[in-house]
């Protein structure tokens, strides 16, 4: 019978007692609102709750939850592959929170998909009833489903440690390398195939955003967004769970600077392949147009700028600069995915049919994010995510 070592439970966060804290109240209000809207969505259809139209079949739920959510949850595979495959042991402490964010991120993606699908109960159809292998979406669905299970297994160690199930914990421990490799394969594929989904519409997506290299653009920007998300998530959880964090502030900073360096390099690579993309499709003249200006805002304002901020922040060891850059990168990835999903999409249609997300769509998306945050907080408060469980110190 495994007894739980007394000091295994995390020290209680000071002054957080009681149910009716402002955090709990706000989250319950958001979640209930979200549930109500979803109820309306499933009784009166998508027309009643969204501004989707025949010309804009995909809106915020696909644009944010699926497209941006997947990219922001890329922190999981980036950090786990860095630590376990490429032997960068110094980043070990942030692997677990990153994996947990990844898992909850992908859960949010599936929630978004379920809300947006016409008949969500038929989600398993492509695998069990009739598969459409020619479709990029088929490949994305397959990889997201598999990767969700991989992430789930990878984030079970803290749970087993919490429950003291040593045998299970050892079993999962032994599979880490295989899981990380599988996770990396699945992530590479669906991050890039998400981009490949837009290759079918060369006339509907603006030529500046459309490129035959979209999959590579999506993948590299997802890696950059993952790194940025890990930094942002570290910033928030470091403050929220300060009492649990074991590693010294100095070590935490050096981890952040390591991530900043990686993010700077990835953003530089992303900027480079975007410029090459312009050259290959010979679109220099389009930069002079209105769309060109908007493209430059996205490219220079949200890729070049954070890249330089990361570089300067890393070089001068200024943590605030790194965090500002991380936030800009996260917003940048969302902007890029929104641009591709409904801003620069149907760019040559009459401007009377522009798609603007309805407040209900925004509310549901916020509700999904809140659900993820609440889950993260619930898990981190109980399980050894922020710190290493004493019995399993230094174990794989």
């Amino acid at each position, binding site marked *: 019978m495994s007894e739980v070592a007394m000091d295994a439970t995390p020290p209680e966060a000071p002054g957080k007692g009681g149910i009716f804290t402002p955090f709990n109240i706000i989250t319950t209000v958001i979640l209930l609102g979200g549930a109500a809207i979803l109820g309306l969505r499933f009784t009166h259809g998508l027309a009643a709750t969204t501004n989707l139209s025949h010309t804009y079949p995909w809106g915020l739920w696909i644009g944010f939850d699926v497209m941006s959510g997947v990219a922001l949850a890329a922190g999981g595979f980036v950090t786990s592959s860095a630590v376990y495959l490429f032997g960068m042991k110094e980043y070990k402490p942030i692997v677990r929170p990153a994996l947990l964010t990844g898992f909850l991120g992908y859960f949010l993606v599936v929630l978004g998909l379920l809300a947006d699908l016409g008949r969500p109960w038929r989600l398993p159809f492509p695998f069990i009833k009739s598969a459409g292998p020619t479709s990029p979406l088929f490949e994305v669905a397959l990889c997201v489903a598999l990767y969700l299970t991989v992430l789930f297994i990878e984030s079970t160690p803290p749970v087993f440690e919490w429950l003291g199930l040593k045998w299970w914990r050892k079993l999962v421990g032994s599979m880490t390398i295989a899981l990380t490799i599988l996770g990396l394969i699945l992530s590479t594929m669906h991050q890039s195939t998400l981009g490949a989904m837009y290759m079918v519409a060369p006339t509907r997506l603006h030529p500046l955003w459309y490129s035959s290299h979209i999959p590579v653009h999506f993948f590299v920007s997802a890696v950059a967004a993952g790194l940025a998300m890990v930094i942002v998530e570290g910033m928030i959880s470091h403050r929220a769970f300060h009492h649990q964090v074991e590693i010294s502030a100095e070590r935490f900073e050096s981890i952040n600077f390591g991530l900043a360096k990686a993010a700077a390099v990835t953003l530089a690579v992303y900027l480079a392949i975007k410029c090459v993309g312009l050259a290959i499709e010979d679109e220099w003249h389009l*930069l*002079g147009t209105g769309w060109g200006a908007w493209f*430059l*805002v996205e490219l*220079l304002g949200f890729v*070049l*700028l954070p890249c330089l901020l990361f570089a*300067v922040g890393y070089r*001068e060891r200024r943590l605030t600069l790194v965090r500002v850059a991380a936030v800009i990168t996260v917003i940048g990835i969302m902007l890029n995915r929104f641009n591709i999903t409904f801003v620069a999409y149907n760019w040559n249609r009459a401007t009377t049919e522009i798609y603007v997300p309805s407040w209900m769509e925004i509310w549901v998306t916020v509700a999904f994010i809140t659900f993820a945050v609440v889950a993260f907080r619930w898990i981190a408060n109980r399980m050894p995510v922020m710190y290493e469980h004493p019995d399993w110190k230094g174990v794989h």
Partner: protein
Amino acid sequence: MTRHTILFSVLALLMVAGAPTSEVAADEPAAATDGPSLVTVSWPASAGEQQRPAVEFDHARHTAALQAEGCTTCHLLDDAGLHPGLAAVSAIDDRGALVEAYHDACIGCHQRRRDEGKQSSGPLTCGACHVRNPAPIPARVPLTFDLSLHARHAQAYPDNCGACHHVWDEATEKLVYRENTEEACRACHGTVAVKATPSLRDAVHQECVACHLERAGTGAKAGPVACEGCHDPAVVAAIEQLAEVPRLKRGQPDVGWVKAPGAVLPLVVFDHVRHERIAASCSTCHHRRLQACADCHGLRPAPDGGGVNLEEAHHDRSSPLSCDGCHQRTAELGDCAGCHRDTTVAEARDIGCTVCHDGPRPPAEGSALAAAKPRPPVELAPLPEPSDDLPETVTIDVLADQYQASTIPHLKIVRRFDDGIRRNVLASRFHVSTGAMCAGCHHHSPVGERPPRCAACHGDAAAPTSDAPSLKVAYHRQCLTCHQRLGIKAGCTDCHAAKEGTS
């Protein structure tokens, strides 16, 4: 912050700020076409590339402003007439001197007027004249010097054709007048000056504008002097047309055989007098010189005939100069458009050659040929009395489904086309028989006999391979296209009343 970082961030900011505002100058074509009174200041190609866009010179404002000083302030007026170019730059082709001359002339004059305190003066800055993308210029119409205008000029200078027409005498190297050699200006004056012969544009301005100026000077009634007079569409349309245009005698035959040396078909009579009354000016047919077609267009295509042989010159339907082409254009006007416009009705092949080739065979070498006489007018047989062959009305109820049956005022239509054809000489001659017009609607069936019903050929569904439409489509397409061409109403309920129940 080391030197490196400052340099790097400055560079980044520059890129961020600089990029969106990078002015990508879209290079539109320099100047649009000249307006009626806007003249693009000419710049000889020999003087090299222009660094700034060409100047749009508003001739009308200048003539208004310089009313008192007269045209000689800019133009050279001598016995040869009024030279259109700016006198100050006419002899210069060196680049620097040309720029200097233009600027002295224009800016100098504007500066002088400003100094003298005149109320209106021209701009002095470069951008004001060399406008990067000038405003769109109103349409400009080339003047057509038609027979009526020619007749009015002839009345002003009775039997003094030498006032305008001249011939270049090689020997004396002077312009002299010779009887019966009058040609259109375009005969000798091309678009570009060739040695001593000025271009058409310069020649016309020298002759006409100078003469109008002179007469205006003496107070006599004179033609327009400003650009709009001849080039503004509204003004040109308002030029007075003579009611009765006297015939312009220039030694042309009244009627004659169409000359076609080497041809064997029966000869064609050409009624020159009748055609003169229809054509706008001699150049309508004599598009190069006032000669017979056969002089340039031989049986074999020859370079001086522009590679067009005689057969094409007479029969090419796509050219407005050929007989067939001109007949086809006239057949697309008014009521005739119903059958003739944009359709393959009345192809040259169907009419048959004898309508025109009704003369004798070309005589053997040397023997005399009877004088050509104008063809007697064609008397078409009168319309037969209405009978079941020519019903008063025709009711089509074969397909009545969403709409009630449709009754067609058959006789009314036939009469409208018939008297239109009788009044028109061309139509009555080419229709040859009264029944020919029936082929307009009753197509692909023998002329004259009682035509078969539409349903005979058109079935329920279209025959996709032969592109023959279904019966419903046949009715609609045949009637509606004609109605649209003639501008007659073609709404659904205009032809057949709606079924009681439906909307």
